[in-house]
């Protein structure tokens, strides 16, 4: 029986050990040893009950006192070990949690930024950090200990029983493999059910959020049976799978318990038969029966623990997945770029999964194919092209969210992998389309660009990006908290804060993904001005949507929508060529003059 326990535990404890540093691992091992010692002492106490009862029932006073003393020694021993284990368990849980949180934080910092772009990643990661890690840290106490108790106590009792009455021990021993096999089967089926369950839960949950999120559209629809149908179906499937999971897990547990109980009944019948036959002393029989009845409890309860083990395993799976994620290669010695010219040389890139891809293309599709262009040092290069042509991907590659599948992206003649992510981060100041602001003051968010900046530098950057105008309107001025993600500011305003951040950072290269949403007059003007400021002495690569940006760029790169470049040159050259770009420009121009209804 102990074999089943150790198998389940070895994987669980082993995987936990692999996640924590050696010092904490040592603590964990000591703790597990202490738990085992506790269980052995506990079992020993039960075993000693047999000689104690024998002495007591046969009126052997010295014998009774002797065995009572023995029991007391075991009891005190248990109290000491149990106290130490109890104290250590809680402290170790904190140590494990601390180690995991640290490792997790480091890991997040290590992962390529591209990993986080995928839609569901952020949610999963934060879920893992809080609930997941907490659960794993408490695993030793909540799951490992009961499982050890469930298997070590019966094992000890079995050994003790073998010493007292080998024939009864044989009955129990025969049952052991049966119990073990049933236990394995349960664990496997629980794990399977748990995976299927996770899937339907995720589906139902996303449908519910969808239903709520789109409520404005659904309500005004006057008949929302389509949306409600999708939702009801998901809830129904979830309900069905939950029932099936409960029934199969329940069936497995029942089977397990029946096997255990059959063993008990066998011992009972066999023991009584022996006693009536005179082959077994009555006090010994009573002692053995007490043992048998008592020791089934932890085993039966361990069947119910299977669910806990499966849950812990799932959480560990998520963590392992996170830790197995490949990171970008980093050079031992970062190379020095010669100048700040940006070059894409025969770059090919596609996103691995649809979650990574976002709006830029479907899974596995090549987004950029054999793409080459140069953004000269100190000049502004505008990237334009139809939606889905890979504009944002270019920004991400330049900020080294990912490395291209083929070809190189280089700065000053050095490929990004040779520069290393740290050096790239120093050289490139990115301004993304979806600017994320931390829930702090506007000042804090700008200061992030250069934590050691002086107040004057900060003020200058804010002024150039016209953040001071935004701040004038905020209730608490510079100290106004912008809310999680910056929700208190409009999209255009957030981008201005991000530009100020980039200005403050004063990196030689700025890569800017212009907001696609139409800016109101104030934001439009502010972004235009700060772009003028940015390009004064920097290499600027901009995914351009504003007509002004496109028109005044030193160089325009027009993507063809099939992973390559249609045309490149200056605005005037391209217009004169009257090709794709000229057509694009005319459409955009017509759109800019569009009126809802002619006057």
């Amino acid at each position, binding site marked *: 029986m102990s074999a089943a326990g150790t198998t389940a535990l070895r994987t669980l404890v082993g995987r936990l050990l692999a996640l924590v540093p050696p010092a904490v691992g040592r603590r964990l091992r000591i703790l597990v040893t202490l738990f085992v010692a506790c269980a052995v002492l*506990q079992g020993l*106490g039960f075993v000693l009950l047999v000689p104690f*009862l024998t002495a*007591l029932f046969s009126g052997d006073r010295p014998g*009774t006192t002797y065995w*009572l003393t023995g029991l*007391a020694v075991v009891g005190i021993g*248990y109290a000491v070990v149990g106290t130490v284990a*109890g*104290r250590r*368990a*809680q402290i170790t849980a904190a140590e494990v949690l601390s180690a995991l949180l640290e490792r997790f934080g480091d890991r997040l*910092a290590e992962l390529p930024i591209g990993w986080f772009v995928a839609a569901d990643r952020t949610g999963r*990661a934060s879920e893992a*950090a*809080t609930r997941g890690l*907490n659960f794993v840290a408490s695993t030793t106490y909540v799951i490992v200990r009961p499982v050890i108790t469930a298997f070590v106590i019966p094992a000890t009792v079995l050994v003790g029983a073998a010493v007292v009455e080998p024939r009864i021990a044989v009955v129990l021993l025969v049952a052991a493999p049966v119990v073990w096999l049933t236990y394995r089967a349960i664990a496997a089926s629980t794990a399977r059910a748990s995976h299927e369950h996770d899937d339907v839960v995720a589906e139902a949950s996303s449908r519910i*959020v*969808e239903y709520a999120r789109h409520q*404005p*559209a*659904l309500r*005004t*629809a*006057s*008949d*929302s049976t389509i949306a409600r149908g*999708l939702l009801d179906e998901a809830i129904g499937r979830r*309900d069905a799978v939950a*029932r099936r999971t*409960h029934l199969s897990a329940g069936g497995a547990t029942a089977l397990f318990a029946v096997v255990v*109980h059959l063993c008990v009944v066998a011992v*009972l*019948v066999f023991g009584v038969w022996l006693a009536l036959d005179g082959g077994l002393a009555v006090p010994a029989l*009573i002692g053995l*029966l007490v043992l048998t*009845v*008592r020791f089934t409890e932890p085993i039966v309860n361990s069947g119910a623990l299977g669910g806990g083990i499966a849950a812990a395993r799932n959480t560990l799976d998520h963590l392992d997945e996170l830790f197995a994620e490949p990171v970008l290669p980093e050079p031992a010695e970062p190379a020095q770029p010669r100048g700040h010219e940006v070059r894409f040389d025969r770059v090919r890139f596609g996103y691995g999964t649809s979650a990574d891809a976002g709006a830029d293309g*479907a899974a596995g599709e090549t987004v950029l194919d054999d793409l080459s262009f140069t953004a000269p040092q100190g000049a502004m290069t505008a990237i334009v092209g139809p*939606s889905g042509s890979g504009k944002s991907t270019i920004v991400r590659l330049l*900020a080294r969210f990912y490395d291209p599948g083929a070809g190189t992206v280089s700065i000053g003649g050095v490929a990004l992998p040779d520069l290393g992510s*740290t050096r790239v*981060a120093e050289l490139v100041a*990115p301004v993304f389309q979806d600017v994320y602001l931390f*829930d702090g003051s506007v000042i804090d968010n700008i200061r*992030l660009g250069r934590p050691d900046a002086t107040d004057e530098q900060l003020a200058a950057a804010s002024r150039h990006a016209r953040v001071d105008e935004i701040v004038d309107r905020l209730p608490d001025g510079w100290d106004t908290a912008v809310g999680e993600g910056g929700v208190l500011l409009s999209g255009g305003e957030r981008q201005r804060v991000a530009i100020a951040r980039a200005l403050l950072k004063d990196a030689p290269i700025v890569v800017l993904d212009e907001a*696609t949403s*139409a800016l109101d*007059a*104030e934001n439009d*003007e502010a972004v235009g001005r700060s772009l003028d400021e940015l390009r004064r002495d920097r290499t600027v690569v901009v995914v351009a949507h*504003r*007509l002004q940006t496109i028109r005044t760029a030193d160089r325009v790169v027009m993507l063809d929508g099939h992973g390559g470049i249609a045309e490149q040159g200056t605005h005037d050259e391209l*217009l004169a060529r009257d090709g794709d770009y000229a057509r694009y420009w005319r459409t955009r*121009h*017509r759109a800019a003059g569009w*009126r*809802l*209804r002619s*006057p």
Partner: protein
Amino acid sequence: MSGTVLSPSVPASGPVPADGPEPPPVDLFAPVRARLVWIVVLAAAGAAATVVPLVAVVELARTLWPALGGQPVDTARVWWIVAIAAIALPLSFAAAWGSIMVGHLTDARLQSEVRTRMVDLLGRLPLGWFGSRSSGVVKKTVENDVSALHHLTGHAVHDLVVAIVVPVLSLVYLFATEWRMALACLVPLVLTVVLYGVMMAGSREQLVRYDESVERLNGATVEFVHGIAVVKSFGQGRGRHAGYQRETGRFLQFYRGWMNETSVMQTVIEVATAPVVVLVWLAAVGTWLTGDGTVAPVDILPALVLGLGLTAPLLQLGYTGQAMRTALQARDSVTRFLAQPAQSLPARPVAPRDSTAEFTGVSFAYEADREVLHDVTLTCRPGTVTALVGPSGSGKSTLARLLPRFHDVTEGGVSVGGADVREIAPSRLYAEIGFVLQDAHILRTTVRDNIRLARPGADDDAVERAARAARIHDRILRLPRGYDSVVGEDAHLSGGEEQRLTIARALITDAPILVLDEATAALDPDSEAAVQDAISALAVDRGLLVIAHRLHTITGADAVLVLDGGRIVERGTHEELLALRGRYRDLWERHERARSAGSPDTAGTDRDAR
């Protein structure tokens, strides 16, 4: 038993805030009451049956006792006892198992019912409820909290019944056989209850603090993960984000301190109630009592057999205390959610006469004392375009959203065809008023169903016609499965394409009044032209209420209303307002400056465009 756990009156996480006059009492468990009784009955039967084999062992000892003195034994009685024990064992398990199974199936049913109720309510909450944070609230309440209810029906009821029935029955038997040993058995039981009481009293405050620190850690992690691109691209990626660092430090400090405090008491309880320790205690008392012959040796056996198992069910309750706490908090949270007042529906719906929308003396406040619209009056007739302009925060969106009842007015009235919007049946109201929002609101389902979302009965021809008019038909045909492609799975659409889908949707709905909430503002400018064409198709013959940033787009509107600080400060046509040289003129000049910065050579390119 179940009543104590499940009645909504048990306070778990502080008082339930009373908002609204008196929300109807919500009884989550009403649909499963009958099954709860089954859980209790089966659990009690199972618990009672677990005591039987133990009693059988004792009775077996009594019956076999004469054998010790070499006297004959009542063999028939022995086998009877064995038979009873052999039956009781599986019976106890079967009943306990049945109770757990019924509990779990009940839980599945309950979760399904509660979720459906919550979703029903989602469909009737005021639309203003669905703000930027509502997704998080829905995820937490409808998903996580309802799942957390599992512990109540799945485990807590059963555990509680067992924790009462087993000790009570055992004690009855113990007192019936040998009262002195029974008293000895009471000692660990009382000790457990007292120690737990002490621990719980001290931990209440700590638990609140624990929740708070988890919450903070959660926030810091979410922010860290969401802001990772920023953190890393500003060179702080090698180290952990400062906020995350700080919060994990703080959380661990608290966690350690807390563990340190509770682990003492926890350990004392565990050691004091451990079977082996209780065994030593009872054996010692038994030895002492039998020593002077007060008690026969066989009479201390009941205590040794049954006395060991008294505390275990209580400890089980203790182990699951955290799950119980979470479940009770979740129950309160779900109850509060369900108690939210739904939007009022008219008792006697009035039918609108025509499609004229009117705002009469409308004032509105999100919270009391903070009015954001003051005394606004306007009319929007079929076939006319009414534009709302003004600086951000002036109340344009709020005003437009009163028409489809995102909120209801604080004072004054909004009416369609002479009937107050609150008096019109929703389906009728939304047949009159369509809405094209900034957010495209596309569901993860087929393109076809997305287009006919508001008119599920629309046939394929109608869908295609709408798609053509919205300039999206050709794009749809290029998708892997055409109209059957599922958005987000094999149809990846750009913002502009999604917006055209919603325009097709509005075309199918064919409401005579349309509210356009900056429909093109959030668009990818590269697809703007196509969307504009689609909107032009939409604008034909309808009454439009338009919120506009880009003033040149609405110069042809029949009426332009300038909002500032929640009031209409100017109204008239574009030309009239320019002539006023007031607020509108300022806005217009600023707008034109920005526009000309974008294209100083407008004349030249305009020629190209033709």
